[in-house]
Each structure stands twice: as C-alpha cells, then as structure tokens.
C-alpha cells in the first residue's frame, strides 16, 4: 500500500544517531529473538545474511547496514553524523533511540526508506525505479518485500499475485473469470509480464512494447505475416484483455460484434446478426460457434499467398 510520507521530526532525530553499536548485531539480537514482537532471526536464512559475500549487510555493518547509522546515511541524510549516541539495549523506561525502520508503519519518509535499499539495489532491473509509477505512488520497497523471511512471498511464483492484489484488487477479481491466464494455479505470476520496478510503457511491462511482451510466450503470433491483420500487428489489446474475460480467448467481446466494430464491408460483414440466428429454424453460421472465425480463422495474420481474407 502506498504510504503517506511522514517527514516530521524524522530527519533531525536520525541525525542525532551518531555512531555504531559496540557489538553490532549481537546488540540487536539480545531482544529480537523469536519470542519478541519483531522477531528477526529468519534474516539468517536469507541472501542478506551471507557473511562471506561482502556486498551483503552481514558482510558489513550487520543490522546497522540497513537500520543503523551507516555510510548510507550520508546518502540518505546529506550529512555525515557526528559523534554521540550509541545504540545499546533499551533499558526499562528508556525510550528507544530513533532508527531507520521500514514498512507500513515506519515513521521514516518512504523516499528515505527506499534510498537505503537503492544504495545496493539500484542496478539491473531497478534502473528505472526512480520516476516509475510505483515510486511515484509512494510505494516503499517494504510494501511488497519481506526481508526477514527465507521466502519472500513476492518472489514466489505462487504467492506473488496475493501481494500485488493488496493494491490491485480489480485484477484479483478478473483472474476468477472463465477465460484467463493461469495465475490462479501458480503457473504464471504477475512478474512474467510486468516489471514492478519500472519500465518504459504505461503498464510496467517487461518488454519495450505490449506486443513484444505477449510474443514472449505467444511467438507463433509474432509474424510478421505476408498478410497482416492491422490491429493484431499494432496492439494485441485492441481485441484481447490481459487478465480475464467472460468471453473465450480473453476477447473483449464476442464475435461478430467484436469484428463489426471495424468491419462494415458491403455484404455479410455489415449485416446485423440478431437473436433470430440462434438455434431454431435458421441457425446462422455467421453467429454461432466461432462466428466470423468459422471461415476467417487466421485472425492473427496469414502467410498463405491466398490468405488476404484470413481464410487460408
């Protein structure tokens, strides 16, 4: 969920944190064991706690790499903290010194939380994060990612959609429709098509264009064909909807009306096909079964020399 940005007091108080704890992670783990309100020990089953990989928090400043006054604070705060406070065990009645924490209830600005993650995760597929729709909507990294767990749900093909549905509720409902991509059963996940950390297009797609994204699984429709169907070459979403439809093949509506939105040629394409063409005395081949595709089956384009009308 988008978080409201809370900027009051956070930066000045953070700036009062002035050096690292004397005993590193041991300081934190005295309290944050499995029985605490905020258990953290599962971090040791994650990539972040790989001490031999010096890029990771536990190859460096341990818990304080992310939560404490780290070199990243300079990036985050603009000023290097001076000397002073030590993060130690909080005694009874003593207030915890402010520290950078993450997630929905964090008091730190979303941008400050994210800058900490971006300190290491700014390359590769995250290059486009800044200025992306999610960044622009004040989504923090921790809105979607869980760090202190061996299996971050958003990185699991089966569990990922539930994370996305927290905000994208309309899409959850769409995936229960009769015609859909197989997210419900874990065969696909949102990130098979979408780049949640930013991409060029309007809907955060993995590939530079919508059709390229579709062709990565449907390469047989890529062509280019000798006889192209203009809308298919231009934009799959002119006829199809990606998440779910009550019509077969994820179509936006039924043929013949789907086709008649663009085809009004003299003769059978322009005829109103009414309910009188349903079963009964005169069932219509233009209306039933595949309707127009009963004859014009090559709607994605044809490579047959006689395929101009998508019938070969």
């Amino acid at each position, binding site marked *: *969920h988008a978080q*409201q*940005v809370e900027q*009051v007091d956070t930066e000045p108080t953070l700036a009062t944190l002035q050096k690292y704890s*004397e*005993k*590193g*992670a*041991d300081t934190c783990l005295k309290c944050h064991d499995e029985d605490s309100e905020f258990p953290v*020990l599962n971090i*040791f089953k994650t990539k972040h706690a*790989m001490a*031999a990989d010096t890029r990771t928090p*536990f190859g460096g400043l*341990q818990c304080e790499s992310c939560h404490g006054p780290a070199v990243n604070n300079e990036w985050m705060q603009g000023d290097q903290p001076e000397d002073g406070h030590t993060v130690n065990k909080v005694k009874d009645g003593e207030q915890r010194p402010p520290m950078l924490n993450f997630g929905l*209830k964090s008091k730190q600005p979303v941008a400050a939380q994210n800058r900490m993650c971006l300190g290491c995760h700014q*390359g*590769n597929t995250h*290059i*486009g994060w*800044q*200025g992306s729709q999610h960044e622009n909507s004040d989504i923090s990294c921790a809105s979607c990612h869980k760090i202190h767990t061996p299996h971050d749900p958003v990185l699991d093909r089966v569990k990922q959609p539930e994370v996305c549905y927290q905000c994208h*509720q*309309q899409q*959850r*409902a769409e995936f229960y429709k009769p015609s859909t991509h*197989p997210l419900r059963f874990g*065969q696909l996940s949102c990130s098979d098509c979408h780049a949640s950390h930013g991409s*060029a297009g309007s809907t955060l797609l993995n590939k*530079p264009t919508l059709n390229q994204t579709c062709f990565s699984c449907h*390469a047989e429709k890529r*062509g280019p*064909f*000798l*006889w*192209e169907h*203009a809308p298919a070459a*231009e934009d799959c979403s002119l006829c199809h909807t990606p998440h779910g439809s*009550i019509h077969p093949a994820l179509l*936006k509506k*039924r043929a013949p*009306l789907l086709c008649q939105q663009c085809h*009004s*040629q*003299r003769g059978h394409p*322009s005829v109103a*096909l*009414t*309910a009188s063409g349903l*079963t009964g005395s005169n*069932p219509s*081949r233009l209306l*039933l079964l595949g309707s127009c595709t009963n*004859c014009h089956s*090559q709607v994605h384009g044809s*490579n047959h*020399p*006689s395929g*101009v009308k998508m019938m*070969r």
Partner: protein
Amino acid sequence: DIPEDVDTSRWNCKNCEFEEGLSGSFSLGLGTVSDESFKFGEYNALYQDGAFPIADAELRYRGEEADYLNLKLQDLALDSRVLEIDGGQQGNYRLMLNYQQLSHAISNSAQTPYRGSGSDTLVLPAGWVDAGATSGMTQLDASLRDLELKTQRNRLEFGAAYIPHSEWETALKVRQEIREGSKRSTGSFFFNSAQLIEPVDYVTNELDVSATYTTREWQSRVAYYASVFTNHNESLSWDNAYNPLTAGADEGQLALPPDNQFHQLQFSTGYQMSRATRFNAELAVGRMEQDEDLLAASLNPNRVVLLPRTSANAQVDTTTLNLQMNSRISEQLNVKAAYRYNDHDNQTPSELFDWITTDTFSAVARTNLPYSFTDNELDLSADYRFSQRTKLSAGYQHKIKQRTNQEVDETSEDSLWGKLSYRSDNDIDWLIKAEHAQRDASGYNLVAQTDPSQSLLMRKYNLADRVREAGSISASFNPNESSTLSLSVDLAQDDYSDSLVGLTESNEIHYNLDSSFILSESTSLHDFAGREVIKSHQAGSQTFSVADWFALNRDTTDSFGVGLKHLLMENKLELGADLVLMHARGEIRIENTANFPDLETNLETLKFYASYQLRENMTVNAAYWYERYDAKDWALDNIDVDTLSSVIGFGETVPDYSVQALMVSLRYKF
C-alpha cells in the same frame, strides 16, 4: 564495506544463527479428483479423475564461503511439474537450471469425422459422402471420433550469472520451450466450413545476455535478446466434406504459424545528476524476420497462379527510445518529463498477388499491405506535497501516432490528469484520480485496396476521434501492519461521438472492497467483493448507407471471496478455509430485435486445508477442494456437429462441472 573509522572488533555476531549445511524437506502423499473436467483442469493439470501421487521436495545447502545450492521439485507426478536448481557462490557466480511444464486442457467434448488429428493432413474416412449441406452428409454420424484438445509446454532454461567485479554483473539465459498438442481451428471452402484440429508442434529458443554496470551515480545495462520460433508443421490440409463448388476444390490448405525470429539489442541507463535529479534512458533496437517459403496459392489443380515471390521475405525493424528526467526541486515539488518513441517499420515488400479464394475461385489480385506505426509521446508531470498528509499530482501527455496503409495517417491525443492523495485525521488514505483525454484523427480515408470497400461512415475505434474521461476514488485504512480495509471505485468512459458506424461509446466501472483482519492472536480473516460492468454501444449499416442497426454489449461480473485462518494447539494445528463465488453475465441487445439470451457463468470454489505438526520435523497436510462451474453460452449450447448447415462443428458442450479433490501428504523436514 565497513568504514575505516568504525570499530567492529567486538562485533562477534555470536547470536547470529547463520544457516549452514544441508536442510530441506520433502512431501509425499496422495490426491484424488472426483470427476474428469477439462475446464476444472484447464491449467492445473488435474483434468483427469482418479488418484494421483503428490511428490514435492526442497533442498538447501549453505556453505561458509557464500556457496549455496537450492533445489526445488514440485508436482512431480503431474503435467505441471517444476524442477528448479539454483547454485553458485553468492557475490561471485550463479548457475540455474529450470524445467517447467504448463499444461492447457482445452476440450474433451469435441468430435470430428476427420482422421489424422494432430498431423498436418486431415482426411475423411473411406466411404464419405459429400453433400451440399451437413444434413446431407450421410456418413457424418458414423464417422465421428472423440477428440481431446490439449497443449503442453515444456520449458527448459539454463541461466548463469557472473560478477567479475563489484560494479559489474553479467548474465546469460538460454531457454527452450517445446509446445505440443492440438488446438481448434477452422477451414472453409467459400461459405462451407469445418472445425478442424490444428497440430501444435512448436519450438521456441530464447537467448538473453546482459551486462550491468552499477555505481551509486550511474547504472547501465546492455542486453541482447533473441527469440527463434520454429513450427514443425508449415500447413494444415484437409479434405472438402462438401460438394466442391468448382471442379478440383477437393482439398484445402491453411498456412500454419511460420518460423520467425526476433532479435533485439537493448541499452538502459540511469544517471543521478545530483541528489535531486535523475536521468533515465532506454533504447531498444530490434528486428522481426520471417522468410518461410510460401505455399501454393491453391491445392486445386484447376486454379494455378504464379506468385510474385517464393518466400514471405517479411521484416519489421523496431526501435523504442525512452528518455526521462525526474527532479525533486524542493522537498515539496517533484517534476518529471518523459519522451517516448516507438517505431514499427515494416519492410516487407508490397506486391500484387494473384490469389484463389478458399481453393475454389480465382479472385481479383490483391496487394499485401505492410503496416508500419510510429509513436511520439511527451509526458510532463509534477507532484506537490502540501503537507505530510496531502500530495497533489498533475500531468499532461501529448501523443502522436502515425500509421501507414490504414484509414488514418495520424492521430493526435492530448490528456490531462490529476491525482490527489490525502491522509485524513483518522488515518484513512484517500486517493482521487481524474483524467480527460481527447484524440483527433488527421482525416479518415478509405484504404483503396480493401475489397469490398468499407462503409463510408465506419470509424475504426483505434483510429477514430475519441474523448476519454476516467476517474477513481479509493480509501484504505491500515489499523496495523496486518490489517487493512480498502474500498475503491474506478470508472472510464470512451466517447466516439463522431463515429456513425463502428464503436460509438464504451465505458466500464469497477467497485472493489478488500479487507483483511487479525481477529485474535490465532485467527485472521480476509475477504473481497467486487462488481465490474463493461458496456459498449456500436452501430452498423446493413443497407450500406446510414447507420441502421445499433447494438449494446454489457458484461457484468460479481465476485466475492472470504477466507479464514486459525491456529490451534499451540500453533501446531493450522486450519483454513477459502470460499470464492463468481457470477458473470453477458448481455447483448440489438435495438428493435429480440434479446439474445444472457451469457452466464457461475463459479463456486471452496477450499479447506489443515496442517498439523506431528513432530518438530514432520507435518501432515490435508486439503479438500470443491469447485462447481456452470455456464450458458448461446454460441455453443445445443450446437451439434451438424446443427449448422454449412459448418461441420465439433459438437462441444459448454463446460459444466462439479469436482471434488482431496489431497493428503506428509512433509518431512531435515
């Protein structure tokens, strides 16, 4: 890296429970499905009734030197099996091997008189009697054979990544997907047609190579992507089951998807120009190629024509460029400017083709039209944060799309949008969005080559003048990290009021409610409910003059779900239940004519699951799944193989199932 002035001599990390050595789990069990249903098992591989083994496994190894290995095996006994191996030394190199099967059960109620289903040649059985209409095909009933339509994708992927230096990362991915099976198609001889089984025997090979350079200020990535598609069948031919309309029209041939390739070089970069300003750019240059040998214009020996070339020689060059500048001018004000360019340049030669319509009649020669598109788009937007609780955003977009060989050379669209996010005193997050856009076409001129020509009044909706209004409002409340309540309404309306024939209006509205609550330390509840209405109006002209028929489409989908999770016996027993109901209704009305019956779909799905920890390392998992589905679809209901006089159908039934599945497994952890 640890800064030099930090004293870490006492950072012993003695409480750090680093994972080391081998661990893992495996599950073995049995499941059973009560009924065969290709719709229930459309994608989950449970399309057959009867028992199936459950076999899953996971293995993890963590070494002291950041070396690691993950192994995952899932659904070993089903057509949806997954194998994932991922290992290496973190921070240095990584090797991956993945295998995934995706099954798509399409239909098990189809019948056909054709022999050779699954191959590229469909023949009628000996003794077949041609007729002018299906009712006269005396051998049809006796010739029918049951069919199963199903495709299966088997994907094998190898990946490797190597980090030669902390600022560099290189990666390679090679994937092969074999897709086999059969799917629906149709083939016709003029107006007489038959539903046909199209063979699917595809191989897609993909290659992805990338190198990334990352420093704090500057990040860049260069990548090469190749996708090579091969279809082992170039055509599908079938016997004409009808009396030939001209002599020699005895066999038809469809071109199947041609072998093709796509290659693309992509460069992305991000540069932090200052603390406040960032520049991003992405350039992708690609080429789509397809040069399959062309089939004969007809299999009819009496209809032979000379083709202007022997292969497709089709090529499209693609270029996309995106430039974006984002600057936080002050703590309150953020501005963004973006330019997007997308070019789809179809280089396929345009030539005059003599052709034969449906292997039957000679036709007037036609020219193939290679369609090209070019988009230019400018986006400007700004966010202003009035206070910590209130942010206002607004933007302007100008988009020009140019097309070749179509009715409109250029459309130009201007959009304005605004967004207000506000947190009220009671900590409810409100989000209100509104958009207005207007698209104008440069002029609508019929494409001369279209034959027969379109109605002069037709305005294809992707080319037409359009006014779009969209808006949404949502409220969400998070009493704590694990509880949330949110409500939203989204609506959009597209008005094509200058279109007299074609799509004239379309709109949609979505209502959604979603909540999850921690009811007690051991009980949580989540639920959702939604309604979606998608409506459109269109007009046609069967007299080929003024618009004389008007149609309405309205699709309404209601969905509701509720789930409960409860922990008992000191968290050793977890019980859960999930119920989802979905009802969809599709209405089609053509003014002044009798109503179409509604298209309807009902889905009820209920899952109970339990997990009991027998011992520290052993858990019993059980799940019961009940799913009921029924649908009404006038396009298929009661349409038998010979109901239509000029289409030999598959005689398929609309999916209607009630399936129960039970799964019990024992998970052992080590």
